[in-house]
């Protein structure tokens, strides 16, 4: 019997809806929010307002693209957290009233677990156990994945996320938000000739706040001597910062693979679109004999297909939630 899951994602600044049928993505729709570009970052109240205006059109579009009618949907999966409380509340409230109206079960999904689940969207399917490095504007963690829903973080950032390090660097350099894609493009024309320190964090955890400060001091020092320093060296600065962020990520991922002996390795999250990360990840895979997995770009950035996919696996387990469920701004996956 066919199982159809509607997934709804509203944890940050993208309102998204998707249909997954029997584990296959049938539609994956996103309404982004341009408003935050003006302010160099996500403004929570503006994001919440935009979600309320986007949610009906996005869900409708996901239904139409999948050729599925609402009464055919078997369950509603939604992002419960982690994320911005005001943003989550719109998706959660909408999902709950849809479920109540259609008399269908509700499935709560952890956004970070869903990022990992984006690796299950297309073949080849990873084998378990697997390691996944999830890197985005809000999250950085290494997860050991023992089954579709059975995973535990081995290490995570103690402060900023890797994507945040890109965005904050972009802000210092006067690069428009979100800065990651443009830094990546500029970096391809430059050389990583400026050295930034590698944070000394024990174990498999990460830290990016010290790097951010050292970039700030580096730029302050050089622009004091030469006001045109940034303009004259922008590609090289971008290449150097990107190189440092990616080597921090890869060093920990290699350490995790060595410690666990796991050779099935994936990346997920918005930063996995970064070309330097993809290059170093593929190289490490060849050098260390990993089988590597990278989801399609549309499943890397925030999306609802991953929510519906994780929801599908939970549906098979009968893992539903009651209507008193509320969003969780912070929510560890275990």
């Amino acid at each position: 019997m066919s199982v159809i899951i509607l997934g709804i994602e509203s944890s940050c600044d993208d309102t998204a809806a998707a249909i997954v049928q029997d584990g296959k993505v049938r539609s994956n729709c996103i309404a982004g929010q341009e408003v935050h570009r003006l302010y160099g970052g996500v403004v929570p109240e503006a994001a919440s307002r935009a979600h309320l205006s986007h949610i009906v059109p996005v869900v409708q579009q996901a239904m139409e693209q999948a050729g599925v009618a609402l009464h055919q949907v078997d369950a509603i999966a939604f992002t419960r957290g982690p994320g911005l409380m005001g943003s989550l509340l719109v998706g959660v409230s909408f999902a709950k009233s849809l479920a109540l109206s259609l008399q269908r079960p509700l499935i709560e999904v952890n956004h970070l677990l869903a990022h990992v689940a984006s690796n299950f969207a297309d073949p080849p399917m990873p084998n378990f156990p697997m390691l996944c490095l999830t890197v985005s504007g809000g999250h950085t963690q290494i997860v050991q994945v023992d089954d579709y829903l059975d995973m535990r973080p081995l290490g995570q950032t103690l402060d900023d996320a890797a994507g945040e390090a890109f965005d904050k660097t972009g802000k210092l350099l006067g690069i428009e938000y979100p800065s990651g894609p443009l830094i990546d493009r500029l970096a391809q024309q430059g050389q990583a000739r400026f050295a930034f320190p590698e944070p000394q964090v024990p174990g498999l955890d990460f830290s990016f706040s010290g790097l951010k400060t050292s970039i700030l001091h580096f730029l302050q020092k050089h622009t004091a001597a030469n006001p045109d320093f940034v303009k004259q060296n922008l590609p090289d600065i971008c290449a150097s910062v990107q190189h440092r962020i990616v080597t921090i990520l890869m060093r920990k991922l290699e350490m995790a693979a060595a410690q666990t002996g796991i050779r099935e390795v994936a990346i997920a999250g918005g930063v996995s679109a970064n070309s330097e990360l993809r290059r170093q990840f593929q190289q490490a895979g060849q050098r260390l004999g990993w089988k590597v997995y990278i989801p399609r770009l549309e499943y890397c950035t925030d999306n609802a297909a991953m929510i519906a996919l994780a929801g599908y696996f939970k549906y098979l387990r009968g893992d539903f939630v009651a209507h008193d469920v509320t969003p969780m701004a912070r929510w560890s996956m275990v």
Partner: protein
Amino acid sequence: MREPLLLLLETATEVCSIGVARGRELLGLQESPPGQDHAAIITLYIEAVMEQAGHALAELDAIVVSDGPGSYTSLRIGAATAKGICFALQKPLLAVDTLQSLAEACKALAPGCRAYCPMIDARRMEVYTALFDEALRRLWDTQAMVLRAEMFQGVPNPVAICGSGAAKALPLFAQGGVHHISLKCSATYLIAQALNAWHRQDFQDIAYYVPMYLKPPNITIPKPRISPA
């Protein structure tokens, strides 16, 4: 013609009040004590009032929301919940002015006053308010206002104040002529305006409806930390 069956969602303030009415007749009501998490209870309350009324959601003629002003977050919980039902069951959406609903309820309790001033708490000494005359004609537009002792200068008294912002305003009006009517937002008070909107067919766009926020998001833009190149 049969009177419409309406689901009423009042979430503008810290009271979550959900009702169902057939025309003017209230068939079910659930109201939270202040401070309860609207998001945790709203669909449970909807289920409960429909059961009290003995109707299924599919039988509703329209969903009614309290339009605000009020708490942004709780207004959005009400609006997002309403949109889910409207979208799933193809029902029209009606929006009712929160302050006017309070003014109407206030007049019913204190009919002899010359003016009615509902106030919804907007934190610190600010309220969302509007002023209505004895016939409930609007004298002030809905606005965010910092409370001050002379705000009713030139307004015919007695003035009745009510709503979640009224208690903190009362000490300013020691000179008399201002009565405090204890009144909280309730789904019950949405009925009259909702019926008017229903008969006018004044339906909201389900996709793009937003509550009355009154103010843009509060945004501060940081200064650049290094001089621009």
